[in-house]
């Protein structure tokens, strides 16, 4: 008996074909929905940060935590090895759980679920999941987050959205980071990056940001606050 479509298969005499039509990552999707239900139960906004390695995800969080004092923040850190990023976050006085994936190039919903057991969601308003630095694999796995934020650092080049369309199409917000380096990177055009984003059909807003100098931080915080307000409104409505 096929569980997915309810068809009955009794191939006694010859080979049989069975129509299935399920998502390959159906198991991951179930766990992701479970995670999302946890977040919703406790009124926590979950934001998945994705980028290439070294685009400045941890630096962004280090700039965000002290600036967003009205918000109780927690962080799940995904890395192949080391506790370094979690240690950097904990130094700012917020709880951080490190997931070391070993050789896995992405986080999946089950890894995040396990990490959630070490995180007190009742004590949080906002949970960041810092995904493994990778512009390919993390895009395929729903973690249960409410929003995806993709970072594109100026040193990477403005054609990144065209090179990694799956990742950039998943973005609800794109942050162009390290803008303090702009004077040295005259071949990076924010307009070209935005145009490449539109060409792949993305409506995601773009914010230029420098974690080091503080440029764009207020716009980023305003986006986070608006998303939190929207989540509260959704929770109150239903």
């Amino acid at each position, binding site marked *: 008996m096929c569980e997915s479509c309810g068809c009955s298969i009794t191939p006694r*005499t010859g080979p049989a*074909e069975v*129509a*299935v039509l399920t998502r*390959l*990552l159906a198991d991951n999707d179930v766990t992701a929905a479970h995670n999302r239900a946890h977040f919703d139960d406790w009124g926590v906004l979950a934001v998945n940060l994705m980028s290439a390695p070294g685009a400045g995800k941890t630096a962004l969080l280090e700039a965000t935590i002290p600036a967003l004092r009205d918000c109780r923040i927690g962080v799940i850190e995904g890395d192949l090895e080391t506790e370094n990023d979690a240690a950097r976050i904990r130094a700012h006085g917020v709880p951080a759980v490190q997931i070391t994936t070993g050789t896995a190039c992405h986080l999946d919903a089950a890894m995040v679920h396990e990490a959630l057991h070490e995180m007190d969601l009742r004590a949080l308003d906002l949970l960041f999941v810092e995904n493994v630095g990778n512009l390919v694999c993390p895009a395929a796995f729903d973690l249960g987050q409410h929003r995806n934020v993709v970072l594109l650092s100026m040193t990477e080049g403005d054609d990144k959205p065209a090179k990694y369309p799956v990742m950039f199409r998943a973005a609800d917000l794109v942050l162009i980071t390290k803008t303090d380096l702009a004077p040295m990177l005259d071949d990076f055009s924010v307009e070209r990056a935005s145009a490449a984003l539109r060409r792949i*059909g993305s409506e995601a807003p773009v914010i230029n940001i420098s974690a080091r100098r503080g440029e764009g931080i207020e716009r980023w915080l305003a986006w986070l606050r608006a998303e939190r307000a929207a989540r509260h409104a959704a929770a109150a409505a239903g």
Partner: protein
Amino acid sequence: MHELSVCRALLREAMRAAGAEGPPLRSVTVRIGPLSGVDAGLLARAWPTLSAADLLIEAAPLRVSCEACGTESAVTPQDLTCRACGDWRTRLLGGDELLLVRIGLEAEDAHV
């Protein structure tokens, strides 16, 4: 390279569809779109490490419908703009699929 994770998930779904007591898998057919985030070539190379069943891959075409003029176009992953009017506000009709379409099962008497 997450195709091995995807292969494991595929095998799990295929075994589930076959049933715990069911006959062995002969073939597994998947449909993969260019915007699924999965590379068909890598998937095909990873699959034999997990299963002896044949992996058959159907490529799903990438198509959009224009919100401005309503035209449907075949597009590329790097450029999803409308081929008729050039507007970027298009809706994906297909091309992000990552589906297990069907499984083939061995004749039961061959394994008794």
